[in-house]
């Protein structure tokens, strides 16, 4: 369970949401409506008030870095701190499998500066998954991708949902929301303007 209680950050909120294991909620809304800020607040990356609980345990009961390993945010713009792709990944046996899933089996040997934005986006998702988070906060994860890559990323998300991972998905694409999410909300000026709707 992921419970978001009276969450406020800047002009965003208060937001209350409750998600069960394996659920995906899509957050829609115009640019500037606070979707990304809401995700950052859930990850505790900006000053905020309110509480977020994972399986009944408040994030305030643990150090922020531990929280972010459980509730992993993948921002729309991914960050890279070293020159080579491999330096951003832990050496894990299932890594190559996951890279194959996103269509980038050889990416570990590449240089970050030569990655396209679509490649960055897919690698950032794999990077976030390698810690085994229980909830994923995805900010437009397929914005820079073509149709084939989008489908690959959606497959990965689907598999995570089947494993019980909770996904909060910010997207501009109502069709994508329909394919993946079982709930959707619309944000406008930092507030939810509709009731969480359960998709058919």
């Amino acid at each position, binding site marked *: 369970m992921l419970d978001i209680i009276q969450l406020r950050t800047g002009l965003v909120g208060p937001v209350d949401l409750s998600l069960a294991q394996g659920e995906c909620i899509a957050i829609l809304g115009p640019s500037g409506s606070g979707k990304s800020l809401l995700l950052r607040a859930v990850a505790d990356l900006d000053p905020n008030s309110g509480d977020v609980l994972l399986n009944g345990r408040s994030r305030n009961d643990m150090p922020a870095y531990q929280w*972010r390993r459980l509730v992993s945010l993948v921002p729309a713009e991914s960050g890279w*701190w070293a020159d080579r792709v491999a330096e951003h990944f832990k050496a894990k046996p299932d890594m190559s499998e996951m890279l194959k899933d996103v269509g980038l089996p050889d990416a570990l040997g590449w240089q970050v500066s030569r990655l396209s934005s679509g490649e960055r986006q897919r690698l950032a998702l794999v990077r976030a998954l390698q810690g085994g988070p229980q909830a994923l906060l995805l900010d437009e994860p397929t914005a820079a991708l073509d149709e084939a890559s989008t489908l690959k990323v959606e497959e990965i998300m689907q598999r995570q949902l089947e494993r019980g991972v909770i996904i909060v998905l910010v997207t501009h694409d109502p069709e994508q929301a329909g394919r993946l999410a079982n709930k959707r909300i619309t944000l406008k000026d930092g507030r939810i303007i509709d009731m969480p709707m359960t998709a058919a």
Partner: protein
Amino acid sequence: MSSYITLSYFDLVAASLFLVLNAVFSILLNLGLQRQLLIASLRMIVQLLMVGLLLKAVFAAASPWITLAVAIAMVTFAGREIWARQERKIAGIWGYGVGASSMMIAGTLVTVMALTTQIEPSPWWSPQFALPLFGMILGNTMTGVSLGLDTLHTTLYRERTAIEARLLLGHSRWEAVMPVTRRALRSGFTPIINAMAATGVVSLPGMMTGQILSGIDPQEAVKYQLLIMFLIGGATGLGVLGAVFASVWRLTDERHRLRLDRLSLAKG
């Protein structure tokens, strides 16, 4: 025997002719530097003449309180200089406080140590020894601290996406900013390391040159210069370390967030 040669004001005017020549070139080549050259020269002349008069009076008064007051004025000015030399500063009083207090603590510690255990004038705070020494240590620490903080703040801002990526992957704030911290420390340490490495080969330090010109035995001048360089190096290092870590602490928070909202905007 003293070979000290007194300079006349005419000598000084003659020495400034080449600087005037530079201004002429600037006008001829349309470089636009003549105004800055003129202002900087005038500032230097007025400041040094004033400081000459002031030091004479302070030395004559030989009062610990007046000495302390002058030292405080030096720290205040140097603190402002650190603040002004950063493109992006911490907002509010912290912007002044972090740099100035690190510099003050490091500079005071090293100067007092040197006065009480190595140079040992009588009394130990004797302004003739304390103020020039403090000034030299403070000046170098100021340069190091301002470079370190400027690099830290500029790089934190530029690398914010990469830093936040690390925070989001579960790194602590110290881990996430470590590459930037290291770069800032290196930048703060570089001038003093370069100065130590080049001194005596590429250039004779100003203080030593001054002593030799005023007739002191070169070996004695070298001993003083070494003492000064050790003190300067030590104080600069401590000041840079203190300022950079204090600034990292202020620009992150206990929930391991990057708090660039505490950084003021760069002026266009």
